Each structure stands twice: as structure tokens, then as C-alpha cells.
């Protein structure tokens, strides 16, 4: 009943000489941010620092060297299963020139690491990776400086190697012996003595992930595995549908059940804490069966949801306007595309632990953003942020904003009601499926015109969407906060601005088009709870754009790959397209027939991050309407590659997940509630539907900035699939999912 997680936690509290004192390093950050009187003398204005160093310029906020020679890396980002811990360790180990075995990493923790916002938007390498790479290089520089003083030698005669500074004359000093006091407590410079990429030994290698051995041998790796002394198991009873109010419940009868410690009721928030987990579940079931609710919500009709959404009031933003896109004329094509609400469908439902001790709350959570969550929780509980400590611990893959923050809020409320005992809240499968914030349903309409030479002349695109982020935030983003008495109101949704965008992410094509107009119809009203799902609006926009590209290519009687190259100037984009076509052997692909078909798609995520092109071959059975993906080949340009296997893993995963979305998935609801409640009613990809092969070719761009790639495959995979199915059946499908019923209905078997 113990088991602290294996982590550098303990090491950090071994405050031996030279060990990092993080809180000190963090103080000036908040002081600078708030403009309050700084603990340091006034800093001169900082030149632009690389990555997140701009948010936390002190080097020892990122790198610590212990008295025992261990190196600790601090990141404000979270391990979500994307391999970030490993990649960041690689960055640090390379630039610091230390043995990998001596490096450990501390991830997002409001009392120990920098505030890097959310681990989202494929920003981790760009923000945290860049910061750590540069910080490590600068620390190496400082160590050489210190050794130069110690050995009375010029720095040019010194080299940092494997944890020590070595002089040409053979003398050496270990790092741990150089770092005393606050040697690393220095503000970073804008320039770093980065290694030459040719000399990399760790960066660019497919180093094995540091977390996998623990995960395959039963080590406690997840927040679900935590079992601190005195822990109680808790379950929440959620309302039968959105907005239902708790009218009455006989708490006393449930508090008599074996093992039950307390039933917590606050307004419509209802939960139970018990000694044993099964006891908590039984008590939850009992409470749910006797609770009386006043139902309120009305949901729109699922069958006509897209018409419904487009009739809601919208805030229209023109995000691209070039030339005269209103030209009419010949060779005009029109299409509209839709996608349904999609579920994150995390395989492990959300979980959190919370402990209220005196006026201090500690929360262990798999949230993507512990700092914003901390502020939300503090608001909800009328506490000061300093009184709330949020520690990120791994959960199962979240793919965006799932119920992680809500589980944390639940745990916090119960912890407040049962102080002094760690409270573990575990969401049930059905609760995760019905209460998580979904990826919004979207609609896109596009009109395009070809000129007489088969190039796109005019492009007029509009996308309708809710916001793609209702993350903490104000307390009202937390489900529990909207249930307690008095409730916090759900905050006003806002569009995420370009160039990253939300519903309009990737709505502007990367192609060179003479006349372009792109309008984002932002819909503030949200009939169904939504928030960020992997790639946000990019999934839908790329699906629509790349499907329409194929429709135009067909009208131009052009090969889909050649057609794209015809309109794309970006050289890295062109390289990725050619590489994917080559990887797939596009020129020799099977002709359509007998249900076989091939499709291609390309995008640069956010027009800022990684480039990804995917080619796919499918087999459609006209009798059943079922599509089998035979093979997929992708090419990716992610800038400088830290861990090629990590990127491959992410892209393969992105493709398979996107195939699952596109082939099978849609959230179901009737007029009162969400009705896709489990894997039976929300089926996803199983082994039977997995392709024969998926290959990923990585383009090498040593020395280029990191480009986030975790979400780069979602859109292109959906479009490649749609294009392959169109090629196989001779019919175009514009509405996701490409279900067997839809395909059968169109192919008329």
C-alpha cells in the first residue's frame, strides 16, 4: 500500500551542495510576469530567448546537476505517451555531454517546473525541447568556464565529455565538483554554444523510451497506480443528462453500506468515498438508483446536426482574402463536407488523486496543463493558487482535452469534504464516454475553379465550428464546478486566433492559389460539450481541402500527386509529397477495379509545424460496404529529428487513430442525452481492421527547428482514405464516418 512512483522525486530532495533550488529559480519568473516588485534587482530587457526560455530564463529552472552527478531535466510539459520524456532527455544528454543513464526528468509540477501552459498543439519540442537544448548547451558552456577557472587553463583547451570537463593535458573535473552554490542560477543568453549536428551521438538516434520497461513489467507508472497510505476510493454520480439538477437523495442509507466513509453532496455534485474500490462502485450504483433528478436539457436532432449548427448565430472571420475569389465561370466545382462529434475515447477512463491537508491541496492528475488547472481549482475552492499544488502523473493517452481536469476537480471537492485522506477518483467507462468534452462536429463548404491549364484559379472556403478549446481556464470549465452550489458559469467560448486557429486550423490551404477566400464561421453556442481533440479543426479542414483537391484533380484529368505538386511552391512540402509517393510506389499503384483504390493527401500541420503526406490503398467490399485499408505509406518532415522511432510511433498511431475516426466513429445522442456510452455503442478500430503495412519515411533536416508532429497525420490520413474510397468505388463520400451503410447505399449493392 505504498509505492511512490519511480521518479527523480526523491533525488530532488537530496539537497546536497550544488543541487538545484527550483522555487527560487521560479520566483523571478512570476515576478517578471506580473510586473510585481522582483526579488532580484531589475533585469534589463531580455532579447528573445529560444523556446520556453523566454518564459523562464534561469538555466537552473531547466537543468540541475546533483551532488551525486545525476542530471535532472525539468520540463513544464507532460508525458502523454508521446515519448516526450525520452526526447527531452536526449536533448539534454547530447548538449550536456553526459551518459544517458545519469539523466532523469521531472515533468509538469506547479512547485517544481516551469509553467509551459498545456502539453498540446504539438508544441512540446518547439517550446520545451528548444529551451532544454539551449539551456543544456549553455550549462555546458558554464561548466567549461568554471573548469577553466579551476584548472587555470583557457577554455579552448577544455572539452566537456561524459559528465566531466577534460583538459588537453589530461586533467579533468567532474561536473558535480564544479557546480556549487548557485552556479547555474544564471539568466540564459539568446545565443547558445550548440553542438554541430554532425557531432550528434544521441539526438537523431532511435533511443529506447525510458518509460516502456516500467510499463511492461508492472511498475507503478500511472496515476491509476498510486496507493498512498490512507487512500480512499471515490466515485462520482453524474446526472442523467446535461443540466439535470439533483432534487433529492437519501444519503444516510448509502452511508450505512459496508466500507462507505462519506457521501458528498454539494448542489448537484454527488459522490461517495469508501475504503474499498468495489465498495465505492456498489455505493455509487446505489446512490445513482435512488437519486432523483430534475431533467432539463434538450439536445438537437443527431440526423440534422450540421444543418442545425449552420443555422446557429456565428461570428464570421475572414482569415484569408487574396485576389478576387468571387469569380464565377466554367469548371466550377462545389462541395460540402462534414464530420460528426468525435470522442477522445481514452482507453483508461480519467483518474485523479487529491489530498487536503490544512489549507493546502495537492492533486495528482494526468491533466495536460497543471498550471491552468491549479488556477481553476483554486477559483473553484476559493483558495489561493499557492495553496494548490498540481502534479502531473501519466494517465492513458488523452489525445487532447478529455475528462482529466474534471476528475481532478471531483477529487478536490471530495478531498475538501474528507480532509487528511488521499482521495482517488476513478471515472467509469460510461461516464468518460458521456461526459468528456468531444471534438466538435464541423461543416465545410468549398467552391473552386480551374483555369484552362488545369491549375486552381479560385478557392472559396468556409468552415463552421464551435470553439476547439474549453480548457481550464476559469473554474466554470470544470464539470464539477458547474454542479456545485452556487455553480460557476461556463465561460464565454472564444475562437483561438490564427495562425494556429481552432476550428479554422489548417483552413487556409498551403497551395499557391491566385484568388483565395477563407471564412471561419465561429459558433459560440455549444449544444454538446466540446473541447480540444487531437489536431483540432485541422482534421476536418484537411479532410475537406484534400478531398476537394482530388475532386479538382479528377476534373482536370490529372494525377492527384502531380496535381498537388502543380500548385505547391513550398519546397519542403514538395519533397514530402514526392517522398510519400515514392515510398508508396504511387506510379506503379494498382488501377481502380474490383473494389481496389488508392488515395493521396498532404498537409503541413497548422501551416507551421510538421509536413506530412500519406498514400493509402483500400479494398471496398460492395456487398457489405466495408472498407479494408490494405496499406499506408507516409512521409514526414519534422525538422531536426530527436528520436526517429518516436516520430514513427506517433505518425503510425496518428494514422491508425484517424482511420478509426474516419471508418467507424460518431458520438450518438437522442433528444435528451448522449447514447454512445461504451465500446459497444461507440466502436473503434480493432485488430481485424488494421492495415497490412504502415510505413513512415522521415526526411532528415539536421539543424532545422523542431516541428511538432504528434498531430500531423490526423487530417492527411482521413483525406487519403476518402480519396482511396472514391477511387475504389467511383463515388465521392464527403461525410465522415465512411460507414458501410453510407458506402453500400451509394454503391447500390
Amino acid at each position, binding site marked *: 500500500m505504498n509505492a511512490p512512483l519511480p521518479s527523480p522525486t526523491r533525488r530532488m530532495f537530496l539537497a546536497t551542495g550544488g543541487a538545484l533550488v527550483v522555487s527560487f529559480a521560479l520566483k523571478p519568473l512570476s515576478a517578471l510576469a506580473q510586473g510585481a516588485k522582483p526579488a532580484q534587482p531589475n533585469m534589463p530587457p531580455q532579447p528573445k530567448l529560444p523556446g520556453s526560455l523566454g518564459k523562464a530564463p534561469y538555466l537552473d529552472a531547466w537543468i540541475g546537476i546533483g551532488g551525486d552527478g545525476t542530471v535532472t531535466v525539468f520540463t513544464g510539459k507532460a508525458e502523454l*505517451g508521446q515519448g516526450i520524456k525520452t526526447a527531452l532527455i536526449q536533448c539534454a544528454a547530447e548538449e550536456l555531454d553526459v551518459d544517458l543513464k545519469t539523466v532523469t526528468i521531472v515533468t509538469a509540477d506547479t512547485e517544481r517546473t516551469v509553467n509551459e501552459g498545456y502539453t498540446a498543439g504539438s508544441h512540446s519540442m518547439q517550446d520545451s525541447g528548444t529551451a532544454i537544448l539551449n539551456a543544456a548547451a549553455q550549462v555546458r558552456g558554464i561548466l567549461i568556464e568554471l573548469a577553466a577557472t579551476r584548472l587555470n587553463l583557457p577554455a579552448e583547451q577544455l572539452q566537456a565529455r561524459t559528465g566531466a570537463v577534460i583538459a588537453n593535458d589530461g586533467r579533468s573535473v567532474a561536473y558535480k565538483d564544479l557546480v556549487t552554490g548557485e552556479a547555474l542560477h544564471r539568466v540564459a543568453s539568446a545565443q547558445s554554444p550548440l553542438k554541430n549536428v554532425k557531432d550528434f551521438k544521441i539526438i537523431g538516434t532511435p533511443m529506447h523510451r525510458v518509460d516502456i520497461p516500467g510499463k511492461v513489467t508492472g511498475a507503478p507508472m500511472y496515476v491509476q497506480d498510486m496507493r498512498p497510505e490512507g487512500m480512499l476510493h471515490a466515485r462520482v454520480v453524474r446526472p442523467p443528462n446535461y443540466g439535470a439538477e439533483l432534487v433529492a437523495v437519501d444519503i444516510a442509507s448509502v452511508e450505512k453500506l459496508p466500507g462507505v466513509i462519506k457521501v458528498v453532496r454539494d448542489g448537484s455534485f454527488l459522490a461517495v468515498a469508501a475504503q474499498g474500490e468495489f465498495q465505492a462502485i456498489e455505493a455509487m450504483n446505489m446512490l445513482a438508483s435512488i437519486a432523483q433528478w430534475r431533467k432539463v436539457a434538450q439536445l438537437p436532432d443527431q440526423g440534422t446536426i450540421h444543418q442545425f449548427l449552420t443555422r446557429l448565430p456565428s461570428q464570421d472571420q475572414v482569415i484569408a482574402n487574396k485576389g478576387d475569389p468571387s469569380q464565377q465561370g466554367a469548371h466550377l466545382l462545389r462541395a460540402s463536407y462534414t464530420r460528426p462529434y468525435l470522442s477522445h475515447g481514452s*482507453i483508461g477512463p480519467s483518474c485523479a488523486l487529491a489530498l487536503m491537508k490544512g489549507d493546502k491541496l495537492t492533486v495528482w492528475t494526468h491533466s495536460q496543463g497543471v498550471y491552468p488547472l491549479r488556477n481553476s481549482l483554486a477559483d473553484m475552492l476559493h483558495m489561493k493558487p499557492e495553496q494548490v499544488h498540481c502534479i502531473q502523473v501519466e494517465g492513458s493517452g488523452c489525445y487532447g482535452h478529455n475528462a482529466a481536469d474534471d476528475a481532478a476537480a471531483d477529487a478536490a471537492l471530495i478531498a475538501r469534504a474528507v480532509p487528511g485522506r488521499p482521495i482517488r477518483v476513478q471515472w467509469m467507462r460510461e461516464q468518460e464516454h458521456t461526459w468528456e468534452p468531444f471534438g466538435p462536429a464541423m461543416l465545410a463548404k468549398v467552391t473552386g475553379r480551374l483555369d484552362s491549364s488545369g491549375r486552381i484559379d479560385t478557392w472559396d472556403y468556409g468552415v463552421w465550428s464551435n470553439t476547439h478549446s474549453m480548457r481550464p481556464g476559469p473554474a466554470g470549465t470544470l464539470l464539477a464546478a458547474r454542479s456545485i452550489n452556487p455553480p460557476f458559469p461556463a465561460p464565454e467560448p472564444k475562437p483561438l486566433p490564427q495562425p494556429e486557429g481552432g476550428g479554422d486550423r489548417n483552413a487556409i490551404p498551403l497551395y499557391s492559389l491566385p484568388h483565395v477566400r477563407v471564412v471561419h464561421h465561429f459558433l459560440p453556442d455549444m449544444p454538446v460539450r466540446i473541447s480540444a481533440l487531437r489536431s483540432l479543426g485541422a482534421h476536418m479542414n484537411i479532410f475537406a481541402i484534400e478531398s476537394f483537391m482530388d475532386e479538382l484533380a479528377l476534373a482536370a484529368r490529372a494525377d492527384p500527386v502531380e496535381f498537388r505538386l502543380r500548385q505547391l511552391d513550398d519546397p519542403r512540402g514538395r519533397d514530402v509529397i514526392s517522398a510519400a509517393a515514392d515510398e508508396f510506389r504511387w506510379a506503379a499503384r494498382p488501377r481502380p477495379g474490383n473494389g481496389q483504390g488508392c488515395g493521396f493527401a498532404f498537409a503541413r500541420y497548422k501551416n507551421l509545424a510538421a509536413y506530412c503526406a500519406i498514400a493509402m490503398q483500400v479494398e471496398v467490399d460492395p456487398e457489405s460496404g466495408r472498407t479494408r485499408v490494405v496499406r499506408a505509406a507516409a512521409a514526414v518532415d519534422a525538422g531536426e529529428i530527436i528520436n526517429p522511432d518516436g516520430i514513427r510511433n506517433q505518425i503510425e498511431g496518428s494514422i491508425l487513430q484517424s482511420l478509426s475516426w474516419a471508418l467507424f466513429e460518431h458520438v450518438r445522442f437522442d433528444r435528451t442525452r448522449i447514447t454512445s456510452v461504451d*465500446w459497444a455503442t461507440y466502436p473503434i*478500430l480493432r485488430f*481485424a481492421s488494421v492495415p497490412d503495412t504502415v510505413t513512415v519515411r522521415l526526411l532528415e533536416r539536421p539543424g532545422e527547428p523542431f516541428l511538432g508532429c504528434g498531430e500531423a497525420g490526423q487530417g492527411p490520413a482521413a483525406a487519403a482514405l476518402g480519396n482511396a474510397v472514391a477511387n475504389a468505388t467511383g463515388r465521392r463520400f464527403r461525410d465522415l464516418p465512411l460507414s458501410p451503410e453510407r458506402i453500400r447505399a451509394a454503391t447500390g449493392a
Partner: protein
Amino acid sequence: MTVLNVNGKQHEVNADPRTPLLYVLRNDLALNAAKFGCGLGQCGACTVLVDHNPVFSCVTPIAALEGRYIRTVEDLGSADKPGPVQRAFIEEQAAQCGYCIPGMMMRAQALLEKNAAPSDAQIREAMAPNLCRCGTQMRILRAVHRAAKLMTVELQGTEAKG
């Protein structure tokens, strides 16, 4: 009081006999590998072996398990001495978030104990009850193939010694 044989050790468990094995493994015996994914027998994250059969521990009450041979991932090896299935998953880097992987490993172990050299189609069919949301299936398939080879090598090694 129910006596359970888990990973070769006898445990006296003082839990309601209706309690699904999963909660006993995790809470009473502090074994982390088997995971709660759905509690409904739909996803396989809780898969363990009972008498060499892959079983959803979330819907198997301990009342059904007295005197039977229960194995979890912790029985396949350790961090210092990983067994063939564990080595295969590490060598293929067959995990993203990793939450589904213990269930996958036990189902693979059950398959390989019955079929030492399964085909791709046989592996896909055997693994069908287990879900992976991150999309790691390609690597999991490669890991099972690799585990089959590693198990054969290990067996040959043992036979050679014996």
C-alpha cells in the same frame, strides 16, 4: 476469505467473493499491470491468464478462482530480467501511452503457449478482444511475432542445457 494462487504465490484475500479479480489484483495485492479500462469485458486492458486462458479480470469474480492458476504480467519477468514477451515489446518499442499493453501481453502469452509460431492472421484474430486507442497495433503485431521467436530460442536454450 478466498485463497488465490497468483503468480505462483498463495494469497488469502478478505474481499467479497463477488469482487472482480481486477480490483483484488490492484488493490489487495498491489499488482499494477492489469488495468481498469471499462469494467464491462469490452476492451481487454484487464486481461490476465487463468489456467492458461486469457480472461477479462474485470468480469471474473474471485469466487470463481479458488484453486486456479492466475498469472499477470508481473509473472512474465522483471525489470532486471524481462521475459521473452516483455523483451519483445521493449525491442519493438510497442507502446505509446502503454496502458493497454499489459492486457495485450497476457493475451499474446496465452496465444504463444498454444501456438508457438502463429501467422499474422492468427495473431490478429487472437488479439481482437483487446483495444488500443493510440494506434500501436502494427508494433504490437511485430512484438508478438518477435516474442514467438524469443520464446523458441529460450526453449531451445533450456532444452540444450537439459
